[in-house]
């Protein structure tokens, strides 16, 4: 497993999370429950690939060995991906998809809000630009949690099951590493120490408004996205996403 300096690792985490979340949204093409959702899912995905490109461009510059955003996206294997565990989970039904989106959006929203205050100009700039998009994503996914949680009996049950399925991966949103704390202390990145509490408050509020019960906080265990210890499903996702670059290593597209 390749380890970079703290800032690069952090930037990869932001970029990889956006990219993998977007890849899962791409899988919805032609399968959404309504045409409006077809458009909205793709729209969110598009924003996220754009954000991923900005983060990975910056990561490539930080690495500085001639790599670029495409090489980072298409030629790293799963042990070198840094995305939060939530985004790699399979799409399941629309309840699982919107729940994953919502839990991730809440994290993104609060992370980016703080990252705007980073001393590192690039981080601040990407965060500022991304936050506008994510504000819309979060509004949209919150609305869906409410609609599905407080919709029909079936939709409520599906949300309950969805929470049961993916809640255990939420610990990623609550933990900071020593390296991330060091970045905060040196003000390279904004002070994201409150994000865990903000995440919990927002998730709580939306769940309550959706007649959904908030499980007790997930505890970190074994899977460790920062060390590239992912769920098994990431491998299959990357096999598909990276196929052309892997099959044609010297090609320009």
């Amino acid at each position, binding site marked *: 497993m390749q380890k970079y300096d703290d800032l690069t690792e952090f930037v990869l985490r932001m970029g990889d999370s956006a990219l993998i979340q977007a890849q899962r949204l791409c899988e919805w093409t*032609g*399968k959404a429950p309504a045409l409006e959702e077809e458009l909205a899912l793709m729209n969110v995905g598009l924003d996220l690939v754009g954000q991923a490109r900005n983060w990975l461009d910056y990561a490539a510059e930080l690495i500085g060995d001639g790599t670029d955003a495409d090489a980072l996206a298409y030629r790293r294997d799963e042990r070198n991906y840094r995305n939060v565990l939530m985004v790699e989970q399979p799409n399941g039904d629309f309840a699982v998809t919107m729940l994953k989106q919502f839990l991730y959006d809440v994290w993104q929203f609060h992370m980016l809000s703080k990252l705007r205050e980073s001393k590192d100009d690039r981080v601040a700039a990407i965060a500022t630009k991304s936050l506008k998009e994510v504000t819309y994503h979060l509004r949209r996914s919150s609305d869906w949690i409410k609609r599905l949680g407080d919709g029909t009996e079936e*939709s409520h049950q599906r949300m309950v099951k969805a929470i049961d399925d993916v809640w255990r991966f939420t610990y990623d949103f609550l933990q900071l590493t020593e390296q991330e704390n060091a970045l905060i202390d040196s003000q390279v990145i904004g002070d994201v120490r409150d994000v865990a509490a903000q995440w919990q408050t927002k998730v709580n509020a939306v769940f309550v408004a959706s007649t959904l019960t908030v499980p007790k906080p997930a505890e970190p265990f074994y899977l460790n996205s920062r060390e590239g210890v992912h769920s098994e499903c990431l491998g299959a996702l990357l096999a598909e996403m990276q196929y052309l670059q892997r099959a044609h290593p010297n090609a320009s597209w």
Partner: protein
Amino acid sequence: GPEERAFQERIDAEIKIEAKNWMPDSYRKTLIRQISQHAHSEIVGMLPEGNWVTRAPTLKRKLQLMAKIQDEAGHGLYLYSAMETLGADRDEEIDKLHTGRAKYSSIFNYPTLNWADMGAVGWLVDGAAIVNQVPLQRTSYGPYARAMIRVCKEESFHQRQGYEILLHMMRHGTEAQQEMVQDAINRLWWPALMMFGPSDEHSPNSAQSMAWKIKRHTNDELRQRFIDQTIPQLEVLGCTVPDPDLKWNEETGHYDFGEIQWDEFNRVIQGHGPCNTERLNARRNAHENGAWVRAAAVAHAEKKQKAVA
């Protein structure tokens, strides 16, 4: 009757018919059929692209393809809206699609088998669509004409992007990539020509549509226009089309071309193309799997309304 005369005079004077205006029933029905088919084509057209969006080879190409798919969903939405101004119901028309009673563009029943297809679909399929649609920006029914202005603008963009995908692969690509481009063109060329529909002598509804200025050019005119503008672009690519009869005709100032396999066209239109089953199953599954979501949205909206009341 006098209403019918006024209607035709308005059309002859190039004044748009609006939703509130009187119109003959058959004009309304013709438009509903045409607009809904067009909308369905946008939606079904997302499927062959969905086959590659998860495998797009670079972030830039992924962004472009996602944007294109998003635009197509948007086109579907405007078009269904335009159709609804005629009193048609979106769910009913979609049900006709799902039960095989409504058509969509035959081209989307062909498979996309390599990445260059994403370029060729943009260049040839959107290109053919634009040639069909540019005159529709002046079609007699106002809401449809206005929808087409927006659609055409975005599709021109997709076409240029598609062409650029192919040009990049031909100029900067490996031999394998160049083969992909030629392969994509070989497979999509004839189906693209078929997009203009049957030749004029086999297109019985055209005359009435022309009189109503729903259509403004015959199928064969539009097909010729598409070929004439596409072949020079093909030459820039350095590729060929799979038509030994294609050649420039100095006399007519147009390209001559070979006979279209109308058997193949009819077979695809009748539901027996290579991917008709997959496309319709995909749409039906999406609709069925989404039923509980739509029901939840309705139930939630009702609850909110009650809470306000």
